[in-house]
């Protein structure tokens, strides 16, 4: 099968082909499609464990085909990454319990530190950051994000809006309020 033929295959078809033939080029194609966004998501959620989570995720995918149960491979990857990040975060929280709250937010990567928007994302609470990233970075629908966070869709939508508002506030300051003219009584 040629490289162009791989480009036209969907993720799921590529995965099937890879597991039936163990063709390295098929895996490369699949890996190159998702590596950056997967790493970006993990690094922004929990930078210390990002590399290990990504590695474990791809290792498990290489070992045996995942049970997609009708889901897209992309969705499966981010759902699994979210679960693994949650586990590793709680583990590191237990280890570094004495550390201040600010440091438990994902330590941003060097690139993230330099960018105002990315550093603002780091200042969001975990759940809002996760919802924002899963929707904006991973392009998952809010219904799927709600399933991952185990909350209702309306609450997920509200948290997403809150996260966007908060991000705007961090970047551009609070929204302008009209002048309050107080009545002066003599």
């Amino acid at each position, binding site marked *: 099968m040629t490289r162009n033929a791989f480009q036209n295959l969907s993720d799921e078809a590529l995965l099937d082909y890879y597991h*039936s*033939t*163990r*063709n*390295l080029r098929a*895996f*490369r194609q699949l*890996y190159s499609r998702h*590596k*950056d966004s*997967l*790493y*970006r998501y993990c*690094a*922004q959620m929990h930078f210390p464990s990002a*590399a290990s989570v*990504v*590695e474990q995720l*791809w*290792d498990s995918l*290489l070992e045996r085909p995942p049970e997609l149960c009708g889901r897209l491979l992309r969705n499966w990857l981010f759902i699994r990454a979210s679960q693994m990040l949650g586990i590793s975060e709680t583990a590191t929280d237990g280890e570094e319990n004495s550390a201040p709250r600010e440091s438990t937010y994902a330590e941003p*990567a060097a*690139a*993230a530190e*330099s*960018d105002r*928007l*990315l550093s603002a*994302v780091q200042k969001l609470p975990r759940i809002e950051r996760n919802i924002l990233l899963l929707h*904006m*970075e991973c392009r998952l629908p809010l219904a799927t994000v709600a399933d991952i966070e185990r909350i209702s869709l309306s609450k997920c939508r509200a948290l997403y809006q809150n996260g*966007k508002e908060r*991000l*705007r506030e961090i970047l551009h300051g609070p929204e302008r309020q009209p002048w309050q003219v107080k009545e002066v009584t003599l």
Partner: protein
Amino acid sequence: MSVCERDYQLAAAVIQSPAALDEKILKRARSFKPTRRNRPWVSRAASGFAAVAIAVLLIHPAQYLGALTPPGHATTPSAAVEETSLANWQEYAEEALAKADPWYELRQTVESGDHVALCSQWREQQRDISAEKLPRDLVREARSHCRLLKAQ
């Protein structure tokens, strides 16, 4: 895509998967060897057929048809050769005409200006002595050139 999402996509494009991590994962992928379909009879049969087909193509006499032309016939045509062949053809045509036409010799004598033979033949025809009748062109020629002598 909203402005916020677009701004985020632009800002996040800076973060990329580290090359060391990529290499590590691809190395792990390389450790899984590609599965080979062991069906040697297919390849053996295919290679055997291919060898036979090539041998047939090389040895088959049909490809040499026309390659061994007899000497003298395959020479390149030139102007002199064409002229001689044309002259040969004309000679041959005259011979053939002489064989086919019984009045050929008489016509040749008439064309050369000698009408004696024609006129004698013509007179014989007029007196109903000759069984053979002259062709039309010779009759026309005889009428214009020969005098009909009155029988005494």
